[in-house]
């Protein structure tokens, strides 16, 4: 029986001890880093970094927004706020359409239910309906 060459390769893999060492090193580092990100100091430092980014970037952002707004106004173009307002109104219109769709569904269901009810009445109890028409006829004759 021929031997599987991949099994041989696995047995003779010179990188295996290196890999094992790497994995144990990574595991140790992983635990250390999990402890680190779970610490109060990490939360404090990331919070401080985010805060300083916001503080530094806010004036630039506001200046760009103002400049853009003025440019758009001068060019007679809608601003970002105008476009967002239209998008919000579109969503409101969609909701009204959905309400209408719900009402149509209800009406359709009622029509089907009433139709089915009539059909079942007509199909299941033909005798009473005939009797009713029989009774009605003499009354009409009497009136004549």
């Amino acid at each position, binding site marked *: 029986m021929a031997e599987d*060459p991949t099994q041989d*390769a696995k047995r003779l893999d010179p990188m295996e001890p290196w*890999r094992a060492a*790497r994995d144990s090193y*990574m595991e140790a*580092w*992983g635990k250390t*880093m*999990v402890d680190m*990100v*779970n610490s*109060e100091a*990490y*939360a*404090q430092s*990331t*919070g*401080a970094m*985010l*805060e300083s980014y*916001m503080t530094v*970037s*806010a004036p630039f*952002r506001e200046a760009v927004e103002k400049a853009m707004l003025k440019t758009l106004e001068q060019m007679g173009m809608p601003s*970002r706020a105008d*476009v*967002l307002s239209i*998008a*919000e109104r579109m*969503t409101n219109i*969609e*909701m009204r359409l*959905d309400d209408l*769709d*719900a009402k149509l*569904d209800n009406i359709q*269901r009622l029509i089907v239910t009433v139709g089915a009810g009539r059909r079942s009445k007509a199909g299941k109890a033909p005798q009473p309906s005939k009797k009713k028409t029989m009774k009605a006829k003499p009354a009409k004759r009497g009136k004549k």
Partner: protein
Amino acid sequence: MIADPVTAAANRLQALNKALTTKAAIAQTPKELVWTLNKSKLYRYVPVLPKEKRHPVPLLLVFALMNRPYILDLRPGHSFVEYMLNKGYDLYLLDWGVPGPEDKNLKFDDYTLDYMPRAIRKLKAISGVEEFSLLGWCIGAILTTIYAALRGDEGLRNLILLTAPLDFSNKQSLTFARWTDERYFDVDKVLAAFGNMPGEMIDYGAKALKPMENYVGSYVKLWDNIDDPRMVEGWHAMNTWVTDNVPLAGGAFRQLIVDLYRDDKLMRGELVIRGERVDLSRIQANLLTVIAEGDHITPSCQSEPVMSKVSSPDKELFRVRGGHIGIMAGSGASKYTWPHIDGWLGRRSQ
């Protein structure tokens, strides 16, 4: 025969390049779009079994707001959606879409009292039934729990919560709670700058919980298995999902941080959604809570307490080995989690 080392190295680099720089073919199960509102879409998966062999009670899948829902339908042969279709479920998926700047004020209130009831109305109209089941995963489980407490009497028969972050009282176990503590994190300042919480920041937060595993270990694992096409294919699909981030609507993010992570309002019965208090004891639907034992994002202490809060006479807590995503998308999902969900739900969907 030993392959030419140069060819082998070239093949490895080619596989590595493909896995790192391209997107895998994901979410391939056929579905039809049946309802939309704003960015949200309701899909109905094309049933694979004839009607008489299907469960009469449809199932609606609700995933988190800040990730793509196609993790539930990752790739053929490794798809929860495909599995459940083959088991005879009438399956719907609510995809929240990508919120734009105009959606920065969307809150849990809108998602649970506008979007979900409307999508469910459509689901009922299409399926022609009055009862349905809900499966919520991660933030999706928060939304389904709120919905079940507020509108559970509108036909909700079964509720499945996967890795549900509902209890935020144990601050020591929650790294996110530490990071978003009001002493260090000014949520209003962040939202004033960004509008919505950027997907990249959320992704960084999730990955930074286990930095070595996510930033180094994952790629080392890929390189170690680069000669195994099946493993590379799975890694590629998962990487496509992991790197496909979605921003979280500003209003919902503020509620998540302030009302839940900081004030634990849901479990304390103090959460108010559009004027209605969310009372978990109003939940009467059959309940299955699935906990991932190795979950570092939602530890079990966040999901367990809901069991004693609900009024459901029929409830079960199921623990499964694996991580937050691994229990549903990992290699063991089709052996443990999916069959258990099917077994539990199938008996309650007749």
